[in-house]
């Protein structure tokens, strides 16, 4: 599904990703954990095409198509979705207008007709219910005045509406209380599908109690330094990241 080879990227001329490899098959959930500053968020931003992230080497292919030459909107239309760590507030643009514009764009790229307003509203209301957001959130400005948890639930709702092939959750658990975390996890689990893959980027093991990954990778200093099954997350929780960083340095030396 998503194949990343030797990916290198700079942010403001600083080398952040230093040769990252990842192969994600359809239906798999991969968790990426690691200390602060390891490049976890950079990975999501590079894959989704945010400005200011300069790719200096390697490749990232979604079902054989190279993502890295594409505009952000083209990547989204191809089926890539980034759930933001800090969803942006856009006053004056209603959530419903935004969601419809988004779904219409992605559908158009798939050769599907736009949904009429009534069917779309019905669909959006149903998804609102699934993530436990009141319908009034559709009328409000995009993320405007939403609490942290509401913003994250709005991200999951977008994911549900767009039905992407690859979902990247960038520290979606940060700032969430346990109830919100469960709603988010349930949303993600409801989207699990043999044809959909997930990258869960997180600092803590907590979210992985609710979204059980197939693989856990440790990202340190711009590279995957260790991969394993879900039990690796528990080990990290217990031991921290220090021992792995040391191992990476020794290995590199």
């Amino acid at each position: 599904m998503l194949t990343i080879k030797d990916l290198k990227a700079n942010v403001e001329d600083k080398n952040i990703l230093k040769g990252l490899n990842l192969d994600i098959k359809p239906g798999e959930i991969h968790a990426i954990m690691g200390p602060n500053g390891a490049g976890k968020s950079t990975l999501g931003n590079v894959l989704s095409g945010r400005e200011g992230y300069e790719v200096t080497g390697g490749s990232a292919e979604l079902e054989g198509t190279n993502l890295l030459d594409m505009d952000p909107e083209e990547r989204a239309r191809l089926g890539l979705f980034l759930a933001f760590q800090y969803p942006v507030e856009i006053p004056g643009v209603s959530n419903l207008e935004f969601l419809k514009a988004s779904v219409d764009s992605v559908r158009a790229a798939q050769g599907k007709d736009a949904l009429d307003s009534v069917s779309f509203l019905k669909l959006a209301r149903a998804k609102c219910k699934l993530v436990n957001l009141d319908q009034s959130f559709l009328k409000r400005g995009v993320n405007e005045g939403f609490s942290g948890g509401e913003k994250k639930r709005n991200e999951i709702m977008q994911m549900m509406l767009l039905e992407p092939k690859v979902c990247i959750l960038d520290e979606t658990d940060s700032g969430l209380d346990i109830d919100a975390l469960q709603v988010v996890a349930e949303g993600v689990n409801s989207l699990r599908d043999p044809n959909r893959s997930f990258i869960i980027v997180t600092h803590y093991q907590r979210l992985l109690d609710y979204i059980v990954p197939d693989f856990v990778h440790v990202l340190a200093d711009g590279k995957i330094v260790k991969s394993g099954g879900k039990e690796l997350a528990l080990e990290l929780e217990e031991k921290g990241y220090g021992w792995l960083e040391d191992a990476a340095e020794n290995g590199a030396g």
Partner: protein
Amino acid sequence: MTDFHKGLLAINEQQSSLLGALNKNGADSFLQQEIPTRKTEAWKFTSLYNLTSNEEGYGRLAETHGAAGLDGLATIPALDAQRLVFVNGQYSEELSSNTEHKNVVRFSQADDTQKSIIADNLGTAIEQEKHVFAALNNAIITDGVLVHVGKNEHLKTKIQITHITTPQAKAFTVPARLLIVLETGANATVVEHFASNDDEQNCFVNAITEAKIGDNARLNHYRLQLVQEGSIQIGGVHVDLGRDANYDSFQLGLGAKIVRNDINVNHNVGGSHCELVGVYLPQNKQLIDFHSNIEHKVAQCTTKEVFRGIMADKSKAVFNGRIHIHPDAQKTLAELSNKNLLLSNDATINTKPELEIYADDVRCAHGATIAQLDEQARFYLRSRGISAAEADVMLSFGFINELLENLELDPIRNLIRPILAQRFGRDEELMKHIG
């Protein structure tokens, strides 16, 4: 006396008995004032060249006032209003509401009580020696509209005053005057609406609005300038506020050959509140200028002023927001915000917040920004599959739409939103998700 002065004054040679004194004073004041140039501080960024150097001159009234085909312009859909419509300055019975309303009357139709209200109030909120185009208006009006709401009366019906222009064989002037008098505890909503057909306009609309808002009274005032770009519109709004009075206003200007609005609000007694929201959206080579001046003469009054503009193409906007806090105006709360978006490298904004504070116990804040679209927001939309071009349209729209969300009248919002969408979209594909 220049030819320009003479030409415009020639419009009104026969002075009526009701307006005679005002006309004469206005003419005297107008003649004493020089026509502003770019060297005049308040006109530094706004050239009157297109008005003063027009070969034909604007010194005549319109010759035709036909209503044919103008119905669509005369109405605001779903607005339940008592409507007075003027075409090229002349009252149109055909386009106006077909019943009379006791709270609104043309000066020329006023009964004796209304005449005395006009005589007592007209011109009293205006310092004509400071506003040459208000002096001109005083000099040349032969009629006008009075909205009068009596003590403690809450006017349910909205009042809509619409001025429509159509092109004439020669350039012409439309003098327009609205006087709003709200007695103690009165409450009213007045919508002023300037429209034109789509043909190239050659009018100079000189429209002055005066509002005398009594103690505890509240005026909700909309002023919408939706005219074709050949038009020249120079005028303003002058407001006197009584004790605990409320002035709540929304202004929208699309820009034209010259649009200049002077908004003057006087906090005269104490406890009054003024809320000004404004939007300007010039495009092509249009010019629009808002000059606001809020006088806090007494203690414990509040002002909240928010203006936003988007300048496209080679257009230009000027915003000057002066808040003058006199020595006795303690406990004043005043906020002024002006944000601007430039959509092209050739567009211009000259913005100047001007706080003059002579009292020591006040809270004032002001800010003016000129910005591009927010990159974070733009990426967020694009990461959801929305094209960069559509994202720009949605964000520009949202920048203004944010100010429309608090409007009390849905019909006004519904009138404006599609206009806004067209302004930025210009392309059906890009505007399908907004408006």
